[in-house]
């Protein structure tokens, strides 16, 4: 590349406004960025939160009951629902990425179709486990 071409100013649209309102990310792109967001949420705070609840639930009969009544709080249930979604989305999108790594479904049409499947399956699983939590 010549230095003139390298220095040529190119427009950049990578600001939050552009990301939210101007760039129309295709569904596989949304699956990907949500995979990243859900992964970050699972590392922190959800891993710490679940480990804390596992710790308390196994410590004694009393602390087990305390975790149970803690899980009855509405705000805690909302947090639990967010955790379930993050876990299900991360898992489903992750399986899709594993298949893509194995060159399965890398053409445009199947790739878009599988991203719809990830969205539908992960939301269905979230509804299923969320209903059991609630």
């Amino acid at each position, binding site marked *: 590349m010549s230095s003139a071409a390298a220095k040529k100013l190119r427009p950049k649209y990578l600001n939050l406004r552009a990301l939210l309102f101007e760039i129309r990310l295709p569904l596989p792109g949304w699956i990907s960025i949500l995979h990243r967001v859900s*992964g*970050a949420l699972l590392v922190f705070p959800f*891993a710490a939160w679940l*480990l804390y609840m596992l*710790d308390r*639930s*196994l410590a004694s009969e009393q602390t087990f009951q305390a975790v149970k009544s803690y899980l009855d709080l509405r705000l805690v249930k909302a947090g639990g629902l967010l955790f379930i979604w993050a876990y299900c989305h991360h898992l489903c999108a*992750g399986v899709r990425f594993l298949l893509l790594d194995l060159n399965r479904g890398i053409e445009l049409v199947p790739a878009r179709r599988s991203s719809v499947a990830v969205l539908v399956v992960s939301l269905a699983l979230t509804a299923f486990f969320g209903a059991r939590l609630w």
Partner: protein
Amino acid sequence: MVKRVVVGAHYGMRDWLAQRLTAVVMVAYSLVLAVVLVRGEPITYSVWRDLFAEGWMRVATLVFAVSLVWHAWVGTRDILMDYIKPDGLRLALQVFTVLLLAGYLGWTIQVLWR
């Protein structure tokens, strides 16, 4: 293209592969746990305690936890490399992540074998 060998020098291929293999381990554990939670008897304290008193369950949970911290390290490092440009801040956050994940692992062992 450079020929990359998993067992060769550290190209990042090992992290890439480890992240995927640990993912498969965690999917397997998740399926087992989901079946236990959904199909088994209602979870009372004694059911819960006995489940985690089983040797296989403790080992499986430990394997899951090791997979999780390894997987999470690769993923967090990717995120930090993508978004955090100042070297010092990135290093600090990476060190923090390592400490956090090491803490998770130690805590898990303590919970499982108390």
